[in-house]
């Protein structure tokens, strides 16, 4: 509507008109013409009340809208000028119409005819349009008689044209062609069109003519512009409305009542004459119109031709159509021979000519030939399997797998009962693997697990990890070391000869007198007992008042002194008896009659604090006590120097003064090892030299007492860290330590780097001892065994000592996991004494 207004507002100017006409003549404005046509079409649509369709794209695209407006200005002019020309050279029909209008006398049938012609033209044009459009859109293929449908489709087409200008340009030729054909169809209009088309300008010139038919421009003039106003408002006026130029449309002269009457009588068409409300003219209805009206009144389908109940054609049926639904012609290429195919064929032909094509032959799956050529010469291959990892061969069957085994292999009744007690599933498994007897070969059935066995073998071959190991050929005896037989190494104690019964509690201390006649034992029942070895008789029992932890005889056989550790005291006892020589006893007593004079000797304060030399009371003296050394802490061990004058005591709880060396003859003490001697567990004197061994945690220290310095420091292995006892070989070149870690370690003084470890104990080692004269060694451990070993030491430096365990002694009873606590050799005979937790002392011979 706005467009219309613009057209009305802006008046045309002559100069532009001229210019345009020139252009038009030169054929430059062709495209614009096309545009204009569109516009005209649209205009016609608007008249037909299809605004919505027209306006849609404009509102959506503002730029487009503006351009169109500008265009419109020019085109409007152009068109108006054209109209002028058109009006000059218009068709006969038009002119007659105009005349009719002017004369305001138009016969109704004529106009109807005109309309019909118009309709026919329209439909023709539309048909052609459709034909052209088919190439673009198949969707609009369906033809229909309804005008509106056709328009709407056109309108849609236009929309698409407007939106896609590119496609428009491309298709313009086709459209032109399509339009060009039209004139031939329309007889009259085509003649006029030909006249108009003089040179070059083709389609654009034809279009107005088309519009002359299509466009109801004559109606436009007649047309009343009052709109929807009720006509009653004009009843009193002589006009019924205004035409588009604003001039009154006068009411036609309808005559008076008589005329009407006459018409009613005379006019045969009176019954079918209707007054047009807008023009006030009479319109005679045709038969078709009547029929239409009648049908509408009857509420029937307007057209009689339309069959409501036509046979239904299902487009999408199960029947396969021979031709595709679309009538689109096949492409050119589908009629031409393919180039690639030609090439392929030529290649094939070439191959055939060259004899290169054979029938397809599958390679043979199995083929045998001489693969190796020779038996022993290996074929060179990139990879060799390591023979080390060769799979072990299958196990060969044995007698028990026989189908008819010897009778002893068959399961006994007891075994069968046992199998019956098993679960059913298990039973079958066991049964399959049991030896069975069949009376004849014919009766041997399937074996239940055979396939599974083969499968398991396969699994073993590819899945289980292999490792190389040394194959053991021989028996366990071959692994035994080659040692001399024990019977060749006699004498050694072999059996228990005597038991010394009498102690009521654990016997912890044990010592044999250097002359080998008497034995002293100390126990937790606060007693020290003196025994006669030969008879096993207890000679004396001394009640010392506390548990005895250690006792030792003075090694000097000229005196009779027994050093006993009782709690924190060390007591020197002279156990007189009928077995001891009187001279020795008197000599000993004389020694202890008067305490030695100290003179200028000043006792070190530390020593003074640690030890006090005391004389026993008269009661004690009667018991045999001669000297009492009082220590700060309980004393665990006492060791005599081989000469018998010096002795050392060990108190584990005293920190810096744990080891104290005393001199018996002068009643003096000294603490030689201040800091280093911490956590001392065992100690010993060297049998020949002035050396002193101290065993601490994880190390053994050897001190020279004369030089007053550390000679050797030996670190033990971690497993024998906690040393329980130490024994020095009488030759002085070797020593052995027993540890809580179940081990005995043999050291050589000169080559201590390579100790020899004996692992034959299964419990913590409690005590070790060398024999003085025989090459014997004994050790006791918490596993309840005393092991006697032949320990031969050679004078030759190169030769290693020979250690052969010769006897296992076992008879002590256990008490709280402890069995043998102390052992000791007889000084001259191969006789062993052991003291146990069961309160007995035993002699092994």
């Amino acid at each position, binding site marked *: 509507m706005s467009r219309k207004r613009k057209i009305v507002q802006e008046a045309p100017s002559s100069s532009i008109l001229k210019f345009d006409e020139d252009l038009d003549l030169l054929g430059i404005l062709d495209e614009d013409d096309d545009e204009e046509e569109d516009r005209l079409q649209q205009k016609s649509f608007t008249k037909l009340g299809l605004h919505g369709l027209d306006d849609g794209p404009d509102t959506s695209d503002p730029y487009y809208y503006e351009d169109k407006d500008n265009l419109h200005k020019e085109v409007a002019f152009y068109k108006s000028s054209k109209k002028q020309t058109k009006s000059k050279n218009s068709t006969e029909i038009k002119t007659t119409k105009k005349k009719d209008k002017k004369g305001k006398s138009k016969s109704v049938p004529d106009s109807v005819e005109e309309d019909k012609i118009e309709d026919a033209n329209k439909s023709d044009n539309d048909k052609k349009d459709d034909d052209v459009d088919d190439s673009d859109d198949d969707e609009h293929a369906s033809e229909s008689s309804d005008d509106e449908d056709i328009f709407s489709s056109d309108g849609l087409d236009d929309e698409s044209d407007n939106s896609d200008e590119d496609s428009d340009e491309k298709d313009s030729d086709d459209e032109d062609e399509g339009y060009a054909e039209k004139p031939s169809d329309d007889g009259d209009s085509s003649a006029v069109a030909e006249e108009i088309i003089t040179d070059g300008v083709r389609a654009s010139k034809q279009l107005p003519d088309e519009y002359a038919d299509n466009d109801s421009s004559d109606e436009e003039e007649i047309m009343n512009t009052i709109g929807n106003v009720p006509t009653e408002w004009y009843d009193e006026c002589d006009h019924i409305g205004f035409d588009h130029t604003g001039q009154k449309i006068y009411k036609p002269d309808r005559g008076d009542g008589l005329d009407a009457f006459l018409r009613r009588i005379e006019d045969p068409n009176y019954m079918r004459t209707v007054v047009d409300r807008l023009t006030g003219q009479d319109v005679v209805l045709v038969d078709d119109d009547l029929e239409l009206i009648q049908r509408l009144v009857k509420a029937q389908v307007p057209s009689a031709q339309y069959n409501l109940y036509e046979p239904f054609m299902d487009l999408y049926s199960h029947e396969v159509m021979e031709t595709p639904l679309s009538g689109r012609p096949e492409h050119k290429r589908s009629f031409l021979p393919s180039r690639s195919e030609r090439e392929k064929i030529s290649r094939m032909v070439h191959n055939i000519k060259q004899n290169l094509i054979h029938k397809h032959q599958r390679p043979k799956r*199995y083929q045998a030939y001489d693969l190796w050529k020779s038996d022993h010469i290996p074929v060179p291959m990139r990879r060799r399997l390591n023979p080390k990892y060769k799979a072990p061969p*299958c196990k060969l069957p044995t007698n028990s797998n026989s189908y008819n085994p010897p009778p002893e292999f068959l399961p006994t009744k007891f075994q069968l009962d046992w199998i019956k007690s098993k679960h059913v599933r298990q039973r079958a498994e066991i049964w399959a693997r049991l030896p069975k007897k069949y009376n004849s070969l014919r009766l041997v059935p399937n074996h239940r697990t055979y396939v599974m066995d083969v499968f398991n073998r396969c699994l073993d071959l590819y899945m289980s990890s292999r490792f190389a190991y040394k194959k053991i050929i021989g028996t366990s005896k071959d692994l035994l070391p080659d040692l001399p037989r024990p019977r060749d190494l006699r004498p050694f104690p072999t059996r228990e000869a005597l038991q010394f019964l009498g102690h009521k509690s654990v016997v912890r201390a044990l010592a044999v007198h250097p002359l080998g006649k008497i034995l002293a034992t100390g126990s937790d029942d606060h007693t020290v007992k003196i025994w006669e070895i030969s008879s096993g008789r207890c000679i004396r029992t001394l009640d010392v008042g506390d548990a005895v932890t250690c006792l030792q005889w003075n090694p000097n056989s000229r005196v009779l002194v027994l050093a006993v550790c009782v709690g924190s005291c060390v007591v020197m006892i002279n156990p007189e008896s009928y077995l001891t020589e009187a001279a020795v006893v008197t000599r000993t007593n004389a020694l202890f009659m008067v305490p030695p004079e100290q003179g200028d000797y000043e006792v070190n304060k530390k020593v003074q604090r640690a030890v006090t030399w005391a004389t026993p009371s008269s009661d004690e003296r009667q018991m045999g006590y001669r000297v009492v050394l009082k220590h700060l802490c309980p004393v665990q061990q006492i060791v005599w120097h081989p000469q018998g004058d010096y002795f050392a005591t060990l108190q584990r709880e005293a920190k810096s003064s744990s080891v104290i060396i005393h001199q018996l003859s002068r009643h003096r003490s000294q603490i030689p090892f201040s800091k280093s001697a911490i956590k001392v567990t065992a100690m010993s004197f060297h049998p020949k030299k002035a050396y002193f061994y101290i065993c601490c945690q994880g190390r053994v220290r050897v001190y020279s007492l004369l030089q007053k310095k550390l000679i050797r420091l030996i670190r033990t292995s971690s497993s024998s860290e906690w040393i329980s006892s130490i024994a020095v070989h009488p030759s002085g070149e070797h020593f052995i330590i027993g540890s809580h870690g179940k081990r005995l370690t043999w050291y050589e003084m000169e080559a201590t780097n390579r100790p020899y470890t004996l692992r034959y104990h299964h419990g913590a080692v409690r005590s070790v001892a060398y024999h003085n004269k025989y090459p014997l060694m004994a050790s006791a451990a918490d596993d309840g065994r005393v092991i006697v070993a032949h320990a031969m030491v050679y004078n030759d430096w190169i030769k290693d000592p020979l250690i052969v365990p010769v006897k296992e002694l076992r008879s002590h009873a256990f008490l709280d996991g402890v069995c043998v606590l102390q052992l000791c050799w007889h000084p001259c005979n191969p006789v062993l004494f052991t003291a146990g937790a069961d309160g007995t002392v035993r002699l092994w011979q």
Partner: protein
Amino acid sequence: MQGEAGEAARFISRSRAVRKLQLGLQAFNRVCIIKGIFPIEPKNRIKAQKGDSKYRPLYLKKDIKFLMHDPLIWTIRQEEALRKKLAKARHLRDGYKEQLVKRNKPIYRLEQNVLERYPTFVDAVKDLGDPLTMIFLFCNIEVRPPIYEHHVSRCQRLKIEFLTYVIEASCLTKAFITTKGYYYEVPPNADMKIMRHFLEFYIAMLGFVNFRLLGKVDLRYPLKPKVMPRLKGAEKKDLDNLKNLMASLNYPLEKTTEESEENLDDNETTSKLIKGSSEKTQKVYAERMQAEARRKLFSGLKFFLNPECNRESLTLVIRSCGGEVSWPSTVFPCSTYKEDDQCITHQIVDRPNFDKKYLTRFYVQPQWVYDCLNAVTLKPCQPYLPGCPLPPHICPFLKNFEGWYIPPEEEDLRKLLAASPEEKEALLKEMAAAEQKKLAMLRAVNEKSDDESGSEDDDDEDKYDEDENDESDEEKDEEVEEDGDDAVNEADASMEVDDGEGNNKEEEKKDDGKEEEIKDVVRRGKERFYSKKKDESKEERTDTRMRTLMIHKKNRKLYHKLKTKETKRLRRSSMLKDRREALELHKIGKISDEQLEGPPKTKIKQTFSERRAKLYQSRVRSAVRFARSAANKNRFRGEKKKPAIADTRDE
């Protein structure tokens, strides 16, 4: 750095290897099977697994690297791709495409792999055990998808080829029938795919081995009958007929070269030479002679197999020992003579009731053939007559472990194998006599039991003994001897008993006297008497015990392992020996059923406190085990913690 050198760098876990080769696990398994690659146990698993102590199969990195460049992997990948294509074609129902894909499926031949794993022919022959078992198994197995018809038919062919080689070369030395039968079902839990991979490799390998083996005995490969038989209409159509000719193992086959008979040297000269030579050569010569004897064991004998016998294995044994075989023509083609042939010396029967038509031949059970082969002598046929209870079938794979139980039958076998051909006859006679004796005794016992079964049942055993004592002097003597021996053993105080028969009794008496005296002495004083034998054995025991104390740390574990094994074996062998003795006695009737089976073992009822103590002990044991394992774990992690137990001990 961890995992960059040493053990960790040498090994690769399976999952990593699979990822590296870009294969699925199944394809990887297949490659491993064909290429003979297997996981290897590292020296230190924790190091090899970079600190992980869980078990994982570890492969050598070298092996996996080798696999990376292997054409087999490409074939497998190709197969994978083709399988996908095939599946697609199937889903699209594109028959042509399917055919095309199937046609293009690569066939991989394994000869290179065979060569790679067995660079020499001898290597392959050494490793023939597994392939043969597998192939003989798959001759009789059901055809179901992972296993196809061509596998089975190929197996059958290879088997026939191998057996013909054995017959031609007559190199069969031992035969043994176990309880494992002839026809097999596949249990559901056996993965036949894996079996197939193995089978494919073994088929390839055995194909080449057979080719070479048959070449050695101058046979044409593939096997072909010497003269093509003229087949009539129906037979001609049946293609199996030709195959069956070969399968019969009894048809002359085409050879590549003409036979040239070798003449062995004169026996006398060689035997003279051998007597002067060293032990080793003598041994080799004896073996050679035995092989020769085995080859000619059945020569000149004609066998006829009854239909119920296992034709194949018997033909193999008989033919490889130089005999002739035939069977009813209805059983299998290619029977050379019929049952009514008068020259047949042995007919093999596996039925208890068989009416013996012909007197000119022996009717024996199949076990006789195998036993003869194993003993390399023609054994007497009496015990093997049809319907007789057979003598036990002894395993010819003799084992020479110390303490291994050798049943008396095996001892006989050993004796026979060790004897020279001249001695064999005498030995056989001896054995037969012993057997006869036993049988006679048995018969006597049975008769008596029949007599007395009606009269008295209570005093059976005693009476048997008495009767036996009365009956025959020989038996009596023997029994007395036996009794005496038993007594001596029981008393454990015998001097060594000499073998001389005459002095035996007197010595025994003397021994008894001594014993009595000594016993008195023992009672009188503290001295103890040790019999010499017992003393020695005891001393030896203590000797070994002392020596075990000094075993080197390295060998200690191994020693105990071996020792337990030996003791187990010893215990089992002694058990079997006792059982055998008891059974023998039971046969004669000296031992009743109850004594044989031992008293019925009933569960001893535990008191509540006992049960509680047992439970407690088991708990303590498990706790200790747990503590140890925990301590070990700590140690493995590298924490220098002392084991918990050691700590407590030291404090």
